[in-house]
Structure formats: C-alpha cells, structure tokens
C-alpha cells in the first residue's frame, strides 16, 4: 500500500545541515496499523509527512498504490491527498467553523455536492458519537471531542490511508484509550490503512500490528507485535516487548 524507498530529508538550518530522515525504507501493507515510535527529534513527524508530501523528500521514492507521488503533477498530487486522511496532535480544527463545517471541509475541497456532503458528515458524526455537537464551535469541546471531530473529518472523504501524528499525546490515558478504540474500529470496519507516529509505548502496544523504531533519522528496527519469532534489538523494542512503561 505504502512503499517508502530510501527516503532522506535534509533541513538547512542556521546551525548547519540536519538530516531529519536518513535513508528510510519500509513497506506498509494494506489494512495494517503501523506505528513509528522513537524519541523526540528522531524524525518521525518528518517521515510521516513525507507520505502525503507535506514534506518533500530530498531523495527516495514515495509509492502509494503503485504510484510514485514524487512523479505526479501538482494537480494530481492534490487529488491523491484527498484520499489520504490526516490527524494531528493539536487537532487543527477551524476555530470559526462549526463541528459540521469542520467535518465537511475535505468534501468541500474535493468538490462533493452539498447533499452528499450532508449525508457523509452525518455518517461520520455517528461513527465518532458526536451527533449532538453538530452545531457547536470547537472552543466548546474537550480535547477528546476535538480529536474525534478531527477523526471524523479525516475519514469523511473515504480515504484509503489515515496518517496520525501523535494523535493522543495531548490527551489523558482514558481519553487516549477512547481515541485508539475509534481508530481500531475504523481500521477494522473500513479497512483503512493507518500510520501512527507516537512516542507512547501504550499506543503502539494496544492497536498496532507493526512498529518501526526510529533513532536519529534512521529506522533501526521493525517489530511485529504479537509475533514471537523476532527478538527486538533496540532499546525501544525491548521495552515494547517486555511490557514496560511508557516514555
């Protein structure tokens, strides 16, 4: 589904050249929930942003559904992005738009007719159990509710892929569990491939099929959760498997 080949991303900063992502290759299967885990600054966000080219890699190929996104024209890339949902740590809701308007935003962008938009938004609101908040503005919602709106927005245009950058890092453990359960349900019910970036062990352990451990821009190890053939080598991997606490 998603094939990242030799992705490298370099930032030129005042302090010099910084290799945020260093020659990373990984293949994420259709229907999989895959997590990138690692310490702060490891390059996780940069890498996940390469999947929809919010960040343009300096080298390598981003192949989604057998298409190298780097070879597409701008207008084609925008079309592809419409089918890749994304959720963020800080929700990124439009403050001056109601819950309904926020969720229908990707459909407006895609040019979906009004009547269909309404139907889809209602379906997604039901999925995240927020039908009663339809007319509220984001400022009135709790963090967990905001993230549920963001989830509804991310799936409204029936994407094949859902990218999540630290979706639960601003939430308490209980709310985190709720959000993860929604993600899991979405993955199972709609077969959406989910890529999650996180630094929380619990996230990786609860819902992921595979975990990629990142360190200083490199993907140092890929671990299959519930697979017993592999013995993790990295520090992160060992903690993950031993069932130790979060970071």
């Amino acid at each position, binding site marked *: 589904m998603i094939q990242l080949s030799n992705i490298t991303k370099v930032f030129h900063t005042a302090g010099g050249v910084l290799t945020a992502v260093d020659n990373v290759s990984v293949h994420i299967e259709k229907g999989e929930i895959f997590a990138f885990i690692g310490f702060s600054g490891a390059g996780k966000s940069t890498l996940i942003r390469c999947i*929809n080219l*919010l960040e343009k890699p300096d080298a390598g190929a981003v192949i989604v559904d057998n298409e190298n996104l780097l070879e597409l024209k701008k207008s084609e*890339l*925008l*079309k*592809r*992005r*419409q089918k*890749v*949902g*994304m959720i*963020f740590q*800080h929700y*990124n*809701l*439009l*403050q*001056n*738009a109601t819950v309904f308007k926020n969720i229908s*935003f*990707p459909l*407006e*962008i*895609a040019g979906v007719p009004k009547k269909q938009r309404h139907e889809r938004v209602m379906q997604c609101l039901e999925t995240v159990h927020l039908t009663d908040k339809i007319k509220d*503005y984001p*400022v009135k919602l709790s963090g967990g509710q905001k993230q549920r709106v963001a989830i509804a927005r991310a799936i409204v*245009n029936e994407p094949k892929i859902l*990218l999540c950058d630290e979706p639960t890092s601003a939430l308490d453990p209980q709310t985190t569990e709720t959000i993860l359960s929604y993600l899991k349900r979405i993955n199972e019910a709609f077969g959406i491939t989910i890529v999650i970036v996180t630094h929380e062990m619990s996230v990786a352990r609860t819902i992921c099929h595979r975990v990629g451990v990142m360190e200083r821009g490199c993907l140092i190890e890929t671990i299959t959760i519930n697979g017993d053939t592999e013995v993790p080598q990295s520090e992160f991997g060992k903690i993950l498997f031993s069932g130790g606490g979060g970071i």
Partner: protein
Amino acid sequence: MEKIYELMPQLITAFGQTFYMGFFTLTISAGLGIPLGTLLYLIRPGSMFEHRKIYWILDSLVNIIRSFPFLILMIAIIPFTRLIVGTSLGTNAVIVPLSISAIPDFARLIEQIMLDVNRGVIEMAESCGATTFQIVTKVLYREARSGIANTVTIISVLFVSYSTIAGVIGGGGIGDFAIRYGYYRYQPEVMFFTVILIIMLVQIIQTTGRIISTALDKRV
C-alpha cells in the same frame, strides 16, 4: 443654533459627500489592499510561496506610501489623479489619493492578521489537497475574519480623519464643511457642532465594527 439651522442643507450635502467618498475609498482600497496583503503573506520569507525579491519590493513600496503625510501624498499624485478621473479637483478626485493611502494600510494590517492564523490549520488544509486559492478563501479568510472586520473599522476611522484634508482640493465632505463655515467664516458654534458630529460618526463606526467583529469571532 440658528446659524446651524440655516446651514442644514450644506451640512447634509457635506455628509452625503463624506459617505460618497467613504464608500468608494473603502471599496477600492479593500478590493486592492486585501489581495495585496494576502500576497504579502503568501510570499513573505518562510511562507508557502516565499519570494524574497518580490516581497522586498512590495514591502518597501507599502512602507514608503504609508510614511507619506496624506497632504503631501495628495499633492504629489495630482498628475496620476488627473489621469484617472480627468480632473484634480472635486469629490471624485479626492477618492484617488484617499484610496492610494489606504491600500498599503489595508495590505499591512491584513498581512499581520493572517500571520496569526494557526499554521497547523493551513497544514490540515494542505493535507486535504486544498489549492492555494481554497486555502486563502476557506481557511485564511475564515479564520482571520474578525481581524479583517477590525481592519475595515480602523481604516474607516482613518478615512474620516484624512477626508477632512480633502477640502484643500475641493473634495467637500464634513471636514471641509467644518473648516469652511466654522473656521474661515469664524463661527465657533458651527465648528463645535460639526466636530461633535464627527466624533459621533467615529463612535458609530467603532461600535458597529466591534459588534460585527465579535459576532464573527468564534475562537473564544
């Protein structure tokens, strides 16, 4: 009071001229200033379409025009005014310098207001496959709309002040009226009365602006 009563027709005409100038000045300067401010925002260093050279040129131009005292600007651009409206005198002629002085004010304020829009929301829109035009209209203008309303209010008040200078080139309007009948004909009570009216006008603009801006703002 009697004098004021006698001058009522002139006063009404003056008000009419002020609103006439105000309407065109605001329409023209918003119509050009808001897109210019948007462009400045988009091409400023570190932004989506960073273009240092063009930004530097437009940025300097905006600063230069903004630093001109209005009276000098009005006189300096007389040839241009004549080119546009065919004359350098009268109410129509005054709309040209008033607009030109308000365009860069608009642009600068709009640019600053857009900078306050959360980058994350723009990124969200990009992740949805939004075009630049969609990002501007559906994200930036929506999230910045109460600030835009404030900008219109500020410029409207500035306009009332600048328009009083318009009398110099026969622009008319309420400020011109105050000077003509209050000052030159030495009728302090007329002057006083007109100034009160101007203060009320500014108050009305300010209050209306605040109400609109508050109603548009759903962030708090």
